[in-house]
């Protein structure tokens, strides 16, 4: 990549710029996998629709296979019985991958504080952005997506997350 001199400690200008370019490209080409389980789906559809138009941010095409996606939206209540399914789908996604917990139930379990419901998907998979609300307004969804894009832009592409298969 860098020609001639070996890069100084801390990364050369060229490498840094390449990383910035990759991060920029990544944040505007999020392929998303909607893991939709409950009523929050309505707000997700609303955010995807022409009025709020999630496609403006490059997060347009939903992929119906987790293997082709790099952003999973967990939309709605996840029961304990669904936990193995969600974790398996998360494991099937290839790096780099990000997770958005959409709505209160996905974030903390919501008012389903009982034996049946997983009290937040962060108990089983790492979450990058939580969008609160029951359901969240599309503005909140856009805000959450922009927050994620903001973080992706600052992520070093050379620093991959530790590739850990969640058991």
């Amino acid at each position, binding site marked *: 990549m860098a020609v001639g001199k070996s890069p100084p400690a801390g990364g050369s200008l060229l490498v840094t710029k390449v990383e910035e370019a990759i991060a920029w490209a990544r944040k505007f080409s999020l392929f998303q996998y909607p893991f939709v389980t409950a009523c929050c789906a309505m707000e997700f559809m609303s955010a995807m629709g022409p009025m709020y138009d999630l496609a403006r941010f490059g997060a347009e095409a939903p992929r119906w296979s987790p293997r082709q996606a790099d952003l999973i939206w967990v939309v709605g209540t996840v029961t*304990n*019985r669904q936990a193995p399914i969600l974790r398996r789908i998360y494991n099937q996604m290839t790096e780099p991958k990000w997770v958005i917990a959409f709505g209160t139930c996905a974030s903390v379990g919501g008012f389903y504080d009982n034996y049946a419901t997983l009290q937040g998907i962060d*108990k089983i*998979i*790492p979450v*990058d952005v939580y969008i609160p609300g029951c359901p969240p307004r599309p503005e909140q969804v856009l805000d959450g997506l922009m927050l994620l894009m903001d973080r992706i832009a600052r992520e070093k592409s050379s620093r991959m997350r530790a590739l850990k298969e969640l058991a």
Partner: protein
Amino acid sequence: MSTKVVGAVRKAFPDEVIGDHAERGDHTVIVKPGRLVEIVRFLHDDPETDMSHFCDLTVVDWPGRESRFEVVIHLHSLAAGHRIRVKTSVPAQSPVVPSITAVYRGADWFEREAFDLYGVRFEGHPDLRRILLWEGFEGHPLRKDYPKQQRQCPVPLLEDRPGQPPPFPERP
């Protein structure tokens, strides 16, 4: 309207009926668990009662009672339009009730659900497994003595695992 149904059950099974009551036209007959299948079959087959439609089967947990688990069956006659509620109670030590799947095939999943959430066993059920929860779930969550805050998950939780690196670099 369903008084005649209660009367028919009383007439056919005088020793089995413990009591009956009615609330705003909803009639309930309380029976012993032993010959439950025969009673339900009678309600289904008898031309006078003609309970063609099985509505619901559920369980009520009464922790204070000697017969703790009360199985409640709702039946309906599509032709005559009348309804009946059949209740029977079993003690906590041996919560076993005869299965009515031989009469109403549709009771299959209801009985599985009742078994899953209350731990009442239905003798004669063709496939009595958990239906809503997973195999390996400990206890029966709708019992009143199930701890309200107890959580179970079929996969290990992240917080039980060794420390993970933060998913993102810190903000500058």
